[in-house]
C-alpha cells in the first residue's frame, strides 16, 4: 500500500501547502503530547505514593494477637494469647492458596533502648527472628555474605544479617563486617550477611536499622518458646489475600480457642486492600488522563478531518483530472486516507517524542534534587506508547474517512467543471 510512488504523491501534496500542513499537524501533536504527559505524571504520582508502601509483597497481610473481647469455652474475656509455631504449619497445610507464611518475633523497636553492642560501641536496633522466605516478602539487597537459611533455622545458629545503618553505628570505616561478632542482649551473634533495602524510598532509614536472626535462634535466645509475635502472610499471585483472609481468621480463632465472632482478638493489616485502594485511585487518574488526552486529541483529529475536507474541496478539480486519467475511486480515497494517516502519525510521533523529552528532563531534575514527596520516576511504558500509536492510527483513518468519501462522491464530469 505504501510504495515509494505513494510516498512521493503524499509528501508532494502535503508539501504543496506547508503552513497549512504544519497547523493541521499541530492539533494532533498537541493532543498526543498532552495525553502522554498526563499519563506520565499520573505514573509519577503513583510511583511516588506506592513507594510509601515500601516494596513489601503487596498480596500480603500482617496478623497479630491482641487479646480476646468475648468469653469463650470457659475462658475469660480480656485474655491475652500468642500464636504458636504449630499455627503456622496449620495454615500452610490447610490453605494451599498461601505462598508464604512467615512467623516473626521482634525485639527492640523505634527509639528503643540500646540492645546491641560491639566492643565499646552500642546501638538500639530492631531485631527480628525470621524464616528464610521472609526475604521473598520483603526484598532486601544483600550486599555481602548471605541471608538466613534453613540450616540456620534447624541448627539454631547464632548468626545475624545486619543492615547498613547497623554497620555505620557499630563498625569503623573499612572494618571487615562478615565474620565479626555482635552482642544482642548480651548474646554473641556471628555476622554472616549485610543488606540495604531494595530500591525503596520511604522508610529506608528505619529498615536499614534492622538485624535479622534465625527465628529458632531468636526463640531460644530470648525465651519465646514456640510463641509467634506476628505473621506475614502472602498469597499466590493468582489469588487475592483479601479473599483468603476470612478462612485464615476462622482457623486462627479455632486454634486459639477464640469465640468465632470475636473480631477484636486478632489484629491484622491488609496490605493488599490498602494497596488496592491506592491502585484504584490511580487507575481512575489514568482513565482521567486517557479521557482528557483523548479529548484534546479528538479536537486535533477533527482539525485534520476539517483541513482534509478543505483540501479535498480545493482539489476537486485535480481529483476530476486524476479520475479522467484513470484513477479509480479507491486510488483517490486511499490517497486521502493515507495523507491524513501520514499527517496524523507523523505529528503524533513528534508529540510523543516531545513528551518523552519533557519526561526525560523531569527525571533528570528529580535525580539531581533527590526524592520528592509523593512523586517519583514519571514515565510511560511501551504499552502506553503502543496504545497511543494505535489511537493515532485509528484517529488518522477516522479523520480521513469523511474527506475520502467526499472526494469521490462527485461525478468526474462535475468535478472537472469546477473552476
Amino acid at each position, binding site marked *: 500500500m505504501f510504495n*515509494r*510512488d505513494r510516498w512521493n504523491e503524499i509528501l*508532494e*501534496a502535503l*508539501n*504543496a501547502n506547508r503552513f497549512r500542513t504544519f497547523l493541521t499537524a499541530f492539533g494532533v501533536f498537541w493532543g498526543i503530547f498532552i495525553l502522554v504527559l498526563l499519563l506520565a505524571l499520573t505514573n509519577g504520582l503513583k510511583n511516588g505514593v506506592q513507594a510509601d508502601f515500601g516494596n513489601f509483597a503487596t498480596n500480603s497481610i500482617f496478623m497479630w494477637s491482641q487479646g480476646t473481647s468475648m468469653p469463650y469455652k470457659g475462658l475469660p474475656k480480656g485474655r491475652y494469647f500468642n500464636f504458636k509455631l504449630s499455627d503456622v504449619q496449620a495454615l500452610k497445610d490447610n490453605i494451599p492458596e498461601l505462598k508464604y507464611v512467615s512467623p516473626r518475633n521482634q525485639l527492640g523497636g523505634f527509639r528503643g533502648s540500646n540492645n546491641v553492642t560491639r566492643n565499646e560501641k552500642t546501638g538500639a536496633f530492631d531485631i527480628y527472628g525470621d524464616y528464610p522466605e521472609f526475604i521473598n516478602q520483603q526484598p532486601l539487597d544483600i550486599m555481602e555474605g548471605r541471608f538466613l537459611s534453613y540450616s540456620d533455622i534447624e541448627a539454631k545458629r547464632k548468626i545475624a544479617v545486619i543492615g547498613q545503618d547497623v554497620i555505620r553505628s557499630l563498625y569503623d570505616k573499612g572494618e571487615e563486617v562478615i565474620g565479626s561478632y555482635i552482642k544482642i542482649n548480651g548474646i554473641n551473634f556471628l555476622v554472616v550477611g549485610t543488606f540495604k533495602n531494595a530500591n525503596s524510598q520511604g522508610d529506608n532509614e528505619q529498615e536499614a536499622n534492622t538485624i535479622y536472626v534465625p527465628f529458632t535462634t531468636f526463640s531460644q535466645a530470648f525465651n519465646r518458646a514456640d510463641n509467634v509475635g506476628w505473621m506475614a502472610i502472602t498469597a499466590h499471585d493468582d489469588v487475592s489475600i483479601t479473599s483468603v483472609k476470612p478462612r485464615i481468621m476462622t482457623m486462627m480463632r479455632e486454634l486459639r480457642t477464640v469465640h468465632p465472632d470475636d473480631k477484636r482478638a486478632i489484629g491484622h493489616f491488609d496490605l493488599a486492600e490498602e494497596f488496592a485502594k491506592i491502585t484504584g485511585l490511580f487507575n481512575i487518574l489514568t482513565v482521567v488522563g486517557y479521557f482528557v488526552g483523548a479529548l484534546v486529541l479528538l479536537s486535533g483529529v477533527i482539525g485534520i478531518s476539517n483541513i482534509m475536507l478543505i483540501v479535498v474541496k480545493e482539489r476537486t*478539480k*485535480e481529483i476530476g*483530472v*486524476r*479520475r*479522467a*486519467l*484513470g*484513477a*479509480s*475511486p*479507491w*486510488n483517490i480515497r486511499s490517497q486521502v486516507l493515507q495523507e491524513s494517516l501520514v499527517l496524523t502519525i507523523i505529528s503524533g510521533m513528534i508529540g510523543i517524542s516531545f513528551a518523552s523529552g519533557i519526561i526525560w528532563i523531569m527525571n533528570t531534575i528529580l535525580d539531581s534534587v533527590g526524592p520528592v514527596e509523593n512523586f517519583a520516576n514519571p514515565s510511560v511504558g511501551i504499552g502506553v506508547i503502543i496504545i497511543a500509536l494505535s489511537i493515532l492510527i485509528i484517529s488518522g483513518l477516522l479523520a480521513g474517512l469523511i474527506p475520502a468519501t467526499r472526494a*469521490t462522491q462527485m*461525478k*468526474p*464530469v462535475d468535478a*472537472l467543471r469546477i473552476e
Partner: protein
Amino acid sequence: MIAIKDLHKSYHMGNNSLHVLKGINFEANEGEMIAIMGSSGSGKSTFLNILGMLDEADLGSYHLDNVPIKNLNEKVAARYRNQFLGFIFQSFNLITYKSALDNVSMPLYYQGVKRSVRTEKAMHYLEKVGLADWATHLPSELSGGQKQRVAIARALASDPKVLLADEPTGALDTKTSYEVMELIQGINDEGKTILVVTHEEDIAHMCKRIVHLKDGKILDDKTVEQVRAKTPAHV
C-alpha cells in the same frame, strides 16, 4: 472504433429538465480526425464527456472498440478511461505541483507501470511534443502553448485508442493554436483517432471530418479537405 446509436442526455435541475442531446447517431473509424462543432451550449462538451465515460447517457448505446459502454461502475470506467482514452482540456488541467514529466507519467502511474519505465515513456512523449528540456519544470513556469503540449503528451502517455480534445485551442492565441493543431495533426498522421470539440471554423477545417451539433441533434456530418496547420509566417 466508436459507435453511438440514438443517444439522449438531459440535465435535471429541480423541476426543470434540459434535453441536451436528442438522439445522436454517430460513428468514428480508426485514424479519423473529427471536429465537433456547434454554438456554445449546443451540447458538444456533453457529448464528448459521454464518449469519455466521464458522464453517462440516459438512453442509447455506445460501443468503444466493440466494447459496450453501459452501466460501468467507477472502477471499470476508470480502467477504460486509462486504457482507451486520452483527454485534452481547454484549460490544460495540469497538476500544479507536479513537474511536466510527472504530469505526463500520471496515466502510467495509475496503470501501475514501474517508475523507471514510466519516466522513460513520459520522457519519450515530452520529446515528441518538443518539451524534453522542460521536463523538470512546474506548469506555472510554462507558457500556455507549452502547457497544452504537456497535456497532449500526457494524453498520449498511455497510448490510448482515442484522443478527446475539448476546445484544445480555446485558451490560446492564434499562433499557438496553430502550433498545437499542427502537433495534433501529426499525431493523427501516425494513425491515432482524434475528436476535437471546437467552435472555431479554422480549427474545425484542420480536421478531416466535421460534425455539426445543433439543438441536440447532428445537423450535418461531412468529410472535408484537411487544412494543414503550418504556422503562417505573417501571423
